[in-house]
């Protein structure tokens, strides 16, 4: 059974590209375009991995991440933050919020694949 990856990303083109990359690799992908819907989807769909954008309207990725970790139903799902914010400070904040990894945008698709595979294998 294919592993499920939830993409929470407000930028449609990026969300679509992520879906493409992951589907080509055989993953089952769902997309949520904002934090609120992302949380709901995570709770109901129970993905194996969440790719989370940070800069989103209304609820920031960091907040979404914290909520995911606070909710026992989603707390165990690993979260990878994919963000344009690449400073050390941002990485640190992401880790503090409970993310397992941090992928800076723009990224090379092979980098994403290798990160995802590494996390899901573990």
């Amino acid at each position, binding site marked *: 059974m294919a592993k499920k990856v939830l993409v929470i990303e407000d*930028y449609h083109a990026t969300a679509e590209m*992520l879906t*493409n990359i992951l589907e*080509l690799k055989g993953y089952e992908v769902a997309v949520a375009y904002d934090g609120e819907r992302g949380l709901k989807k995570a709770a109901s769909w129970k993905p194996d991995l969440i790719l989370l954008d940070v800069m989103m309207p209304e609820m920031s990725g960091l907040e979404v991440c914290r909520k995911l970790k606070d909710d026992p139903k989603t707390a165990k799902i690993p979260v990878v933050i994919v963000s*344009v914010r690449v400073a050390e400070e941002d990485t640190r904040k992401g880790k503090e919020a409970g993310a397992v990894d941090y992928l800076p*945008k*723009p990224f*090379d698709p092979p980098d994403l694949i290798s990160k995802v595979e590494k996390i899901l294998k573990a």
Partner: protein
Amino acid sequence: MKEAAEKITREEKIETLLRSVQITYAMVSGALLLLAVFVFFGFNVLLPVFWGILAAAFCFATLEYYLIRKEWLINASYGFLFTAFTFALIAIGIYYSGMETSPFIWVALFAVVLEVFYYGRGRGLVLGIAYCVFLWVGFLAEQFGVVPHFQFIRGFDPHRQIGLLVILLSGYTAAFLIIPTTLGILLERLRKERTHALAMGEEQEKAYRMSLSIMEDLEAARRELESRIKDVEDSRRATLHLLSDVERSREESVKRAEEIARLYEDLKVVDRMRTEFLAVISHELRTPMTPIKGYTSMLLSGTMGKLTPAQERAVGIIQKQNEHLQDLIDSVLEVSRMVRGRRMELSKEPVSMRVLLSDLVDALALQAETRDIRLVFSIPDDFPTLLADLTKLRRLLTNLIGNAIKFTPKGGSVEISGKLRDGDILIQVADNGIGIAKENLEKVFDRFYQVDGSYTRAAGGVGLGLAIAKEIVTAHGGKIWAESEGLGKGARFCFTLPLGG
């Protein structure tokens, strides 16, 4: 002055008049005496001579007094001769008119009194003794028959003699004593007064003149004071004026300073906004770049289907341009971080400068070749490995070498060399391009600095390349500088990095 002169003339006139009155009076009294003698004694031969001599004596006595007292013609020493002459005349008179019974005894006595009165007791005493001695000598001479008895003058009558004596005394007193004395005293007083008045006048004149000059001085001083006051007033006004000017300019400068402070605050706000804008924009730009990069990569890797060579080339160009765009955005982000005073973050790892440089030279060879530029690379084989941020170092060197290639004319050369110096590594990138003016050697590292329009292609085209290069070197604890002999003489960019990282 004129009044004083007039006063003198008048007083002099009075004095001259008085003097002539005195002399006339003395002469008249003498003549009157002679006349009286003739009236009382008749005109026999001896008596007129005798009385004449006697009258002359009186006149002389009068004149003597007058002349000596005024010290006019005859000085004091002659006064004694007159006295002696008077003495002789009186003594003869006494002797020949009856000795002790002679009325001339009284005359002699009176003469002594006058002598005392006028010349002091000493001379009076001498004269008195002289008379006594003469009388005793005459008396003894007569007793011994040496001289005959004195009563040889005819018509000598003691009673008449007494009457004569009274006349003589009164006349003499009037002529000799009272009138001249009174007149003398008056005259003296007048003289004194005149002298006094003159002196007073002179003094007054002097005082007047002095007061005049004092007045003049005072007037001058007053004028001086007035002009001083005016000056002071003027300068006070000028000072006030100046003060108001100063106050005005102070207010202006305060206003200006406030304005500048406000402008500065505004500028700070603008600068912060700009920095924030830069940060936001660079983040915003990354967002659309992400799918571009992802899809180009996917297309080129063939995961979305095989591309024709032409398509592959086109997508390759898109990918390269996207990378370039990303570089630019990274530069902007870097600078916005620098502006905010954040330190550059380094992720250090062991870096082989030799490997890095040869990779870069390979990567840039094509660019150099198209411009017919020789890329010379000399670095020792045993060049040490250092601890540094590889990505940042690559960026730094790409920038320096890229610049060197861009600013070197066709057919030139760019030399990259590495060596060790004082425990640091020293990398030099030298070209023989357009060079840099001396005054700009330090400025080239300023943010947004461009030497001229031709620099716009360098380092992302916004003049950030060298500023970032400097930031990278500084963050590693090294130094960067530019050397150039001047415009058209090429340039050499050097930087040091500590071996320890």
